[in-house]
């Protein structure tokens, strides 16, 4: 009965396959050396308006016969592991959009092509000075800044009017308004939709108090969530979150607040980016509804200054192993150049700030862009160091910290645990 032995070996084989559950999906573009070439471009969900990028590619393809541009749209969630594996391959995507908090980390790995010598061609002189630092490491350029944006409060004009609330200027007014909506709507309307793990929003409150997420300490960095100022920021977040019935252990993308939550109604206000507001309006209109949104910057502690916001954004980088580096650089110069960026600002209706100051879009009153512009002066970045990207990988210690505090744990103890993890990760090369 040898067959039984064989069956047993088969079973052993099944166990071994436990090890093979990793992800080694191949990605990247075609790299035929002769004949038609393809430039592969990875852009993030919500970054590039469809008509705009098509126009860019049309212009590029007209200039370069036999070259095709293949645009692939990626999701933010879990993007780092995808980019890392892509950059390690022989045929990586040629142009990659990288979050401005993550660019330095990838520059340090040697996976990105250095662009210092191409500065003139890329039109670096006209770049926004606030965006540039995130694309550089040790004085060398590794990416072209593309766009930046910050979050504002989106509100349902009708819900605010019904409760007799006007857009607030200070935190106190903000809370008072939410309280009023809560009492007048008798629980039918959620005054503010704020999930427990919206850590970019928390970062703003921490900066308002004078704290930070991490600071440089000698040669190393250390997490500073347990700093009393940072805890003040978290306390305000907790107060704000008490006006929301959003899950305490989820971020704004699960479920996607703009398309899965807000369109279902019953939400008086929420905090989001321009493309999210656009997505929500589209989803409501697709369902034959009518969206009537107003926008105001996140209120500050005093009326003279809006609340600090995370200056989110993206850079466009070229993979070091790209087989079409020159073509990629040309595409980059075109897409991130002044002319196309002016069109970009138009296409996003100012919801994303273009990399050239002169390409900026003049935002009409009452739009998302106008509210965003008011807060741009108080925009801040996460710590600029190559190790910061490690902090953001899942499971993100800042998110876990927020959930713990919102569920009633002692902020100090939870913050110390998170700081320990942040310090360990941020110093990892």
């Amino acid at each position: 009965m040898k067959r039984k032995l064989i069956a047993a070996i088969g079973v052993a084989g099944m166990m071994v396959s436990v090890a093979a559950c990793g992800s080694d999906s191949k990605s990247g573009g075609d790299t035929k050396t002769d004949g038609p070439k393809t430039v592969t471009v990875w852009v993030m969900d919500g970054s590039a308006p469809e008509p705009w990028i098509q126009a860019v590619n049309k212009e590029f393809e007209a200039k370069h016969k036999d070259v095709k541009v293949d645009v692939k749209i990626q999701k933010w969630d879990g993007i780092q592991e995808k980019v890392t594996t892509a950059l390690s391959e022989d045929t990586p995507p040629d142009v990659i959009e990288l979050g401005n908090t993550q660019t330095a980390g990838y520059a340090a790995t040697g996976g990105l092509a250095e662009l210092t010598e191409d500065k003139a061609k890329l039109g670096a002189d006209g770049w926004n000075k606030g965006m540039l630092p995130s694309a550089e490491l040790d004085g060398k350029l590794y990416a072209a800044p593309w766009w930046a944006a910050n979050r504002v409060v989106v509100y349902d004009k009708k819900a605010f009017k019904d409760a007799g609330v006007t857009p607030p200027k200070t935190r106190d007014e903000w809370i008072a308004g939410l309280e009023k909506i809560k009492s007048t709507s008798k629980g039918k309307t959620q005054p503010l939709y704020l999930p427990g793990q919206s850590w970019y929003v928390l970062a703003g409150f921490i900066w308002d108090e004078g704290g930070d997420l991490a600071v440089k300490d000698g040669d190393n960095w250390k997490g500073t969530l347990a700093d009393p100022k940072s805890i003040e920021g978290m306390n305000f977040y907790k107060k704000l979150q008490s006006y929301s019935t959003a899950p305490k252990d989820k971020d704004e993308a699960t479920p996607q607040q703009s398309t899965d939550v807000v369109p279902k109604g019953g939400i008086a206000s929420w905090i989001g980016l321009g493309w999210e507001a656009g997505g929500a309006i589209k989803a409501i209109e697709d369902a034959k509804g009518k969206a009537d949104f107003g926008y105001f910057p996140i209120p500050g502690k005093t009326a003279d200054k809006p609340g600090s916001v995370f200056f989110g954004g993206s850079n466009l980088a070229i993979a070091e192993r790209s087989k079409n580096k020159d073509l990629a650089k040309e595409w980059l110069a075109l897409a991130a150049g002044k002319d196309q960026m002016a069109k970009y600002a138009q296409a996003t209706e100012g919801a994303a700030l273009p990399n050239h100051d002169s390409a900026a879009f003049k935002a009409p009153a009452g739009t998302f862009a106008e509210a965003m512009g008011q807060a741009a002066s108080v925009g801040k970045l996460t710590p600029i160091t190559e190790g910061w990207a490690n902090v953001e990988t899942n499971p993100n210690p800042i998110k876990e910290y927020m959930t713990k505090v919102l569920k009633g744990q002692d902020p100090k103890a939870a913050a110390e645990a998170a700081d320990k993890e942040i310090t360990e990760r941020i110093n990892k090369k």
Partner: protein
Amino acid sequence: MTVHSQGVVTSVPEDAPRKSAGESQTPPPSGSKEVLQRPRGRRGLPTGLLPYLLVAPAVISLVVLLGYPLIRNVILSFQQVNKRELITRKPEWIGVDNYKELLGSSDFWTVVVRSFVFTAVNVLVIMLIGTLIGILLNNLGKKMRLVLSLALVMAWAMPIVASVTVFKWLFDEQFGVANWVMRSLGFAGYEQHNWFETGTSTLVIITVLIAWGSIPFVALNMYAGLTTVGTELYEAARMDGASGWRIFWAVVFPIMKPFFLVTTFLEVIWVFKAFAQVYAMNAGGPDRGSETLPVFAFVEGSGQQHYGMAAAISVLTIVMLIAVMSFYFRLILKQEEEQ
């Protein structure tokens, strides 16, 4: 083994050679006398190179698809490969450091204990309910049996990630049906009950999902096995005044023992290495509270980008699974000797 247990379960390895032996009526190419003299059994089996050629595709694909990655995985577990090393392709040899760090960390042992408890509970639930449904199938009328079989096959055929997505929405905190049902039934506190509040509660939901997806396999095989148990055995037992409970343990169970053995061990393997269900449900959260070993390896590897460490975790997982399964192998080998 009794005659009745032939064809029970997934005993493909037992059936297949019989069939081929029956079909090949022509004498083997070598035509040796020895073969012809034997009245039955191995008469029709080919000799020479042919058997090796026939088994070659399976062996080669195993070696290429499992053997090679396994060796690479073991090598990787002795290296430091993080984001930077992966992109520059310059792994650093660090000997057993990955293993030392793992075995010395309490997180790892928590995950190990969790994985074993999770597997035990799942297999128990699956085997129990699966067996009961199998018996039910055997006793149902024709129409109802068809309906139940169809339902089982559909649950079995459902793609994993699709079913996880459905479960996630069923148990969603804000829009979930589960909360609505509890409210409708008049239970308090389900206005926005978070079913994924803790690691344990998350694992309970995952258990429901895995059991739901795996019970059909056990039930249908149980039913297939039961059809081979002769009705005269039941009749004889009843004549002697045995109760249903007694019939199961004295008649059905001994006959079906090989079935229970193989199925249980298959389920142990499947549940222990269940990845998609656990990861897709809550990504091992909250706060890493529902990570089982495969998910732990994935979060460390792909999530945290510590690829060497993840390889070490998966090697240890294999070692553990082999330790558990050695019990099964011993049993098989013992039977081998007896025959």
